[in-house]
């Protein structure tokens, strides 16, 4: 029995151990390359334990954690995304932090944040939920402000800290209300209230709404999105990629489990509220992105809109929704990594490449990089051959299946609007004037500078994922269907 528990928990224990070892290794001797490789290997080895853990799943380890295929799938996503971020970070740190001492802790923080993400994916209890969230949030906060000498990252870090604190406060209050009404801290236990009483108590409803608001704050759904553009812009590019993917992916895993276990979608009032949030997110994100002149901010607003699409899929309810959400999150991670990855690779010393002018004519000077960005943007826009298309297909299919016609129409309308700003960036890449024309020498030298093989490898991986999932999504779909059925099934079996 105990052994089975350990096997099920292997990924988390593994990564936790690696965090400690990394910390000791840094204390022992500082060496950027060595620590980076070590962090990468930690994620890889943790990833390797997933199949092993799957043999023991589904399994409830204490009341706090549930290890099932669904959680393992998301763990795989979180870990592989973290690996890509590490790959992207290496050269970026070398170039950007030249004068900065102590680069190595960056990887430790990254591992800790990933650890928090893993905990979130398996949480079935408020305590583990909160612990995972705080671990993730605090590590990210330090990562955002990691470049102490610059103003923007510091500002972004403070903003993120304030956001984190308020989100936690709201979340805790919501949890308290739910505990008060249900006497339980497990998601499932909270959901029991709905089955026991005829009319749902107002405080319970309020609690669910507050928890949801807390998560929405972290996910950056409108109208809780104010921090997103500033933090995305201020944070170092690989960390922005991390916030947009790992942190989001883990939270969505949690949200999906929470919503399923609590049965929130059975209440019309909550469905209406979520629908409203979905529409507001889509519209706000897209409208604010329309005239952005800053690539990072543009991607930030687009991520708000994508949160809205995700909610549409979530609202469909049932297995179709869980499948659609999971697929969409995976796809979203790939394409966001692609876009921010290009920003990372293209960034020079002294600041990220974030203005539109930086990208003018990039296709004619660095075709591969521009092709990568184009691919990611087309994927975000949902154009076929890319994974984004299948993701959008899934989201629309879930909506159509559930008969959410208005939401589907809103999704379509917003997709068209979003095309405008993606195209605007793409057309900039293909513009006549080559980038080197603005700064004759300095830029041209930079543009031929190698991207660093780790980054090239990471981007290549992401690109092939985007294309593979766009052309041959069948196997992943089947994997997701199997895993998600696990989520729903386990949910029912537990007391």
């Amino acid at each position: 029995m105990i052994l089975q528990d350990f096997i099920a928990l292997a990924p988390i224990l593994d990564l936790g151990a690696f965090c400690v070892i990394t910390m000791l290794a840094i204390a022992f001797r500082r060496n950027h390359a060595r620590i980076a490789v070590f962090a990468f290997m930690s994620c890889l080895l943790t990833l390797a334990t997933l199949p092993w853990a799957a043999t023991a799943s589904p399994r409830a380890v204490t009341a706090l954690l549930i290890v099932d295929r669904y959680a393992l799938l998301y763990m795989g996503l979180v870990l592989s995304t973290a690996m890509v971020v590490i790959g992207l970070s290496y050269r970026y740190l070398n170039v950007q932090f030249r004068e900065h001492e102590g680069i190595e802790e960056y990887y430790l923080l990254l591992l800790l944040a990933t650890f928090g993400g893993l905990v979130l994916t398996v949480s079935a209890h408020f305590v583990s939920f909160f612990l995972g969230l705080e671990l993730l949030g605090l590590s990210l906060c330090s990562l955002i402000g990691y470049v102490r000498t610059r103003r923007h990252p510091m500002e972004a870090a403070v903003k993120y800290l304030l956001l984190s604190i308020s989100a936690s406060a709201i979340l805790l209050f919501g949890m308290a209300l739910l505990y008060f009404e249900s006497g339980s801290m497990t998601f499932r236990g909270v959901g029991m209230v709905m089955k026991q009483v005829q009319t749902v108590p107002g405080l319970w409803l309020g609690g669910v709404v507050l928890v949801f608001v807390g998560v929405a704050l972290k996910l950056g759904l409108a109208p809780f999105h104010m921090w997103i553009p500033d933090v995305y812009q201020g944070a170092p590019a690989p960390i922005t990629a991390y916030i947009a993917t790992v942190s989001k992916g883990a939270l969505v895993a949690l949200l999906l489990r929470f919503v399923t276990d609590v049965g929130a979608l059975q209440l019309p009032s909550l469905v209406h509220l979520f629908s409203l949030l979905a529409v507001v997110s889509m519209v706000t994100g897209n409208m604010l992105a329309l005239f952005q002149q800053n690539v990072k901010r543009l991607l930030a607003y687009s991520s708000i809109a994508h949160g809205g699409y995700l909610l549409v899929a979530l609202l469909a309810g049932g297995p179709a929704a869980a499948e659609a959400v999971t697929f969409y999150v995976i796809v979203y991670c790939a394409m966001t990594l692609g876009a921010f990855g290009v920003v990372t690779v293209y960034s020079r010393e002294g600041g990220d490449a974030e203005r539109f002018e930086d990208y003018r004519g990039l296709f004619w000077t660095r075709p591969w990089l521009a092709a990568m960005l184009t691919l990611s943007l087309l994927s975000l826009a949902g154009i076929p051959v890319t994974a984004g298309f299948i993701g959008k297909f899934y989201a629309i299919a879930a909506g159509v299946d559930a008969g959410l016609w208005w939401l589907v129409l809103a999704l379509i309308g917003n997709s068209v609007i979003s095309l405008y700003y993606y195209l605007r960036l793409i057309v900039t890449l293909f513009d006549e004037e080559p980038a080197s024309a603005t700064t004759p020498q300095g830029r041209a030298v930079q543009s031929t500078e190698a991207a660093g093989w780790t980054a090239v490898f990471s981007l290549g991986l992401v690109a092939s994922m985007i294309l593979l999932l766009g052309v041959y999504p069948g196997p992943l779909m089947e994997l997701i269907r199997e895993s998600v059925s696990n989520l729903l099934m386990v949910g029912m079996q537990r007391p």
Partner: protein
Amino acid sequence: MVLWFLILIPMLAAPLAWIGQQWSRHVARWIAIGALATDLCLALLLWSQDHSGQVSGHGSWLFESHTSWIPLWGISLHLGLDGLSLVLILLTAFLGLIAIVASWTEIQSRVGFFHCNVLLALGGVIGVFLAIDLFLFFFFWEVMLVPMYLLIAVWGHANRRYASFKFFLFTQAGSLVLFVSIITVAFLHQQATGRPSFDYADLMRLTLSKEMAWWLMLAFFIGFVVKLPAPPFHTWLPDTYTEAPTGASIILAGLLAKTGAYGLLRFTVPLFPEVMSEFAPIAMGLGAIGILYGAVLACSQTDLKRLVAYSSLSHMGFILLGAFAGTELALQGVVMQLVAHGLSTGALFMLAGALYERFQTTDMRQMGGLWGVIPRGASMALFFACASLGLPGLANFIGEFLVLFGSYSAQPMVTILASIGMVMAAVYSLGMMQHTSFGPQRETRLAPDLSNVVFGALLLMAALQVLLGLYPRPVLTTTRPVMETLVQPAVPSSHLTHPPSDQMPSANLFTSHVSSP
């Protein structure tokens, strides 16, 4: 498998053309020519295997290829070739070659990437004509969009950015509406049979409730008509056609518009027989409006390319009119019009491009007396202007005449209105000739006449126009089995005085009369 070759040859040649640019611009061009010529030969080969006249209607395909793709959703890589697709693929390969010849001297920068995009777009178009799994169809439908967008955005004229955005946003909006309805149909299939399916044959068997069919039909209609285009979804057309480089204009007008028409014929009409009779008058009315509106606007244009663009809108109206008339005559006219319009508009855009290369403008007010300057160009322009206005003996005439003749029995008033468009066509086509070729010579500079290659290409198109105008039978017999399946069993109620049994024999009689000289 041979069907996949048709798609993959241009698609795989595309990166080669891009790489080929390293050695010489001509390498890229010749790779593109080679790929399309191979495609053309392949399609001709497929055509020649079918002497029996038994080109299949739906349900059975001349050639078919079926591979599982996403079994979870009932999506498969299902291609099928019948007479209609065959004719359109021949047109695609031919016009593709013409587009490359037309860009031979015009495109001098980034030649490799240009031809890469042309080949990708054409590969997508061929895929659209072959796919009979709706998901796969939509896949190709979108695949052709991005390279097309780049063709306009990178090599277009002054206002290219605006035009390319407008083009992409409009067509994408239409596509997404189409996409949602495709998914809905698949789910309705799941509700009926327990498994989702995007396969054409499965969905043909699906019976829908009247209300659902109405909405779905509307969505399918909008999705395709945006591409066609017809009012009120046409506003992207003049800007896009005008700003695009010559080669892209030819592809846009000659082929992309045809994908919309193909969608209407292949999907919209046969999938929703339940509401066809109610919807047909509306669609035909829109077609007539398109004919007249396009013609009126074409009359008042001063820019040559804009004039051709609006005339194209007018010609597309005939296609819409005929597609929903539900008679075999009209449907055969539609096919003829598809081919004929591809040839005539392609040629006119080619000429407009040639003029632009020589005078850096397509503004007709600055032209005049070109007959004395470039006699070859002016004479070809006269020929294709006549084709465009529907001169008997040329292919456009057959198309438009058959459409009007076939539509009259369904909607006489609409058809009478539409036929005014043919008169207007004469006005704007001859007006165009008047402004450009005749009158005092305003352009004093001497310009070289058309090169032999361009002239040869135009002559070839002219020869095809004459051939199809006098002997349309090959096209008509190839597509007849498909068109027969599209004939509406029920004639709109207002015309019960002409029972269908009366019309059909006469229709066949006429076709055979026309087609055997």
